[in-house]
């Protein structure tokens, strides 16, 4: 993180507001939500369910428009899906009728470009999927499917990677493995990453910054800097700093929901009980 970077953020969200018109009336999902993501940064977005995290991410990807406000990529307003933005969806979202190779070729087919074989081979090797190209998604575990989805998202060399609760469906061991993989890939490519998750630990482990959204309508409630150097080891999740930070974020989120029942116990006491 260089201090003296250019002022233009990689991805700038300015007063993003989104209203869904539903049968039961209008729903304000995002309310003047503003957020800057700098180049080469990993930012996680956490918040109570239904707070508009996914809405925010889909707006950033250009997959749906905003009611008002704007998203800028390198200072230029985006109006639709952008080739420089890759997305990893909830659950792997692979096409079940294509084998891994064909799934990873899919973005190139849509764009009418020749697949960059060397780069794909490098990525497959990076995520440990060498030799699985002929397998169909149903033949792979959830973790392997999500690895393939990450390769697919990175295949077009986007400069921004948006990840929408990518590991929510995985067991906690696989999830930790995937978190390390994301960090490795980041160290390798320095792709700017916006990561949505329900897991505060995951958010802290991965991110340079954790952004907490308030309950609906979503707006940025808090922001925490995570100062640990990279590569991080999983041990940091057992340190007191991370534990306190986790609790603070949890309070931000839970406190939103059950404001009257604020916990009285000091967090230090809980710390003693846990290990």
């Amino acid at each position, binding site marked *: 993180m260089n201090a003296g970077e250019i002022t233009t953020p990689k991805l700038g969200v300015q007063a993003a507001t989104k209203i869904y018109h539903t049968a039961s009336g209008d729903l304000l999902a995002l309310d003047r939500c503003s957020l800057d993501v700098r180049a080469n940064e990993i930012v996680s977005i956490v918040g109570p369910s239904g707070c508009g995290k996914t809405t925010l991410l889909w707006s950033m990807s250009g997959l749906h428009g905003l009611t008002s406000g704007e998203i800028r990529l390198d200072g230029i307003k985006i109006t639709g899906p952008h080739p420089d933005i890759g997305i990893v969806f909830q659950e792997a979202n692979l096409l*079940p009728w294509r084998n891994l190779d064909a799934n990873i070729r899919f973005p190139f087919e849509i764009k009418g470009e020749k697949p960059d074989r060397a780069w794909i081979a490098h990525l497959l090797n990076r995520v440990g999927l060498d030799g699985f190209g002929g397998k169909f998604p149903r033949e792979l575990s959830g973790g392997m499917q999500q690895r393939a989805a990450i390769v697919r998202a990175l295949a077009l060399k986007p400069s921004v990677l948006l990840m929408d609760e990518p590991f929510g469906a995985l067991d906690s061991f696989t999830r930790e493995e995937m978190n390390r993989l994301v960090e490795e890939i980041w160290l390798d490519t320095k792709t700017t990453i916006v990561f949505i998750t329900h897991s505060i630990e995951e958010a802290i482990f991965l991110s340079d910054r954790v952004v907490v959204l308030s309950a609906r309508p979503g707006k940025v409630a808090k922001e925490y800097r995570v100062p640990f150097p990279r590569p991080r080891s999983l041990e940091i999740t057992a340190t007191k700093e991370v534990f306190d930070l986790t609790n603070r974020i949890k309070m931000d989120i839970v406190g939103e929901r059950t404001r009257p029942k604020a916990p009285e116990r000091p967090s230090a006491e809980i710390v003693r009980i846990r290990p």
Partner: protein
Amino acid sequence: MSDAIPEFSKSKSGDGQDVSLTNLSAFASGPGIKSGKEVAAILAVAVIIIGGIELALRLFHVPLYIMPPPSSIAYALFDEFPLIAPHLGYTLVELVSGFAIGAAVGLVLAAVITQFPFAEKIVAPYILLLVTTPMLALVPLLILRFGFGYTPRIIAVALAAGPMVMINAATGFRRVDSAKIALARSYGASTLQIFWKIRAPMALPMILVGLMIGAIFGLLTAVGAEMVGGGFGLGNRLTTYSSMIQMPQFFAVVLILSMLGILIYVLFFLIGKKWASWEA
């Protein structure tokens, strides 16, 4: 007595079907060839059932015009085949051309109509009407209008197969997975690309089901139409042989028809195995 014939003929063609199907799936269910024992058991059961029928019919001196024994049916099939073969050809022509027309129209309509949910709602009752009406009922009318040639039969087959293909294909096209469409869109896919790369492959298993049902309904309708009028086709052979009380020949034709049905089933089964096996 009138019960006896359909009952026998059903069990006859029925077990023929069962045996070949199990046989087929035994072969098809993987490279690990099911043991010779299994195949032997399947064949043994077939031999016992067919042999048993043969024996029973001969023991109880069942007259030939009620139920011919399997051996005489097999002989008739062999002996009369040169005479039956052209009629098999006529029936196939009607089936293939009628099915091709009906399936093509059905597929296109399904693909178009599912893009417009409102139009679909308007059209749905008429489609349902087409699916549920036995198109055989229209054959006399079609014959009045088009004569005794191929035309009324091909129209009837197309009318029977088309709606079946359409209704199943439409079910397939309606299976929208918004995440997969979002995926394609995130790479800037056009509506046409989304159709060919996402919607069509997703609908394929249901389309194949529709094609299979359509083809079998087409066969039914072709034979039915031939029985109503006109001097050629397997259906016409059925009416001719039964009117002449040539029961072994009659059952030989029935056997050919059940083989045709099985062939249709196996064909689509294999296509499905090859192209739609991703769906369990």
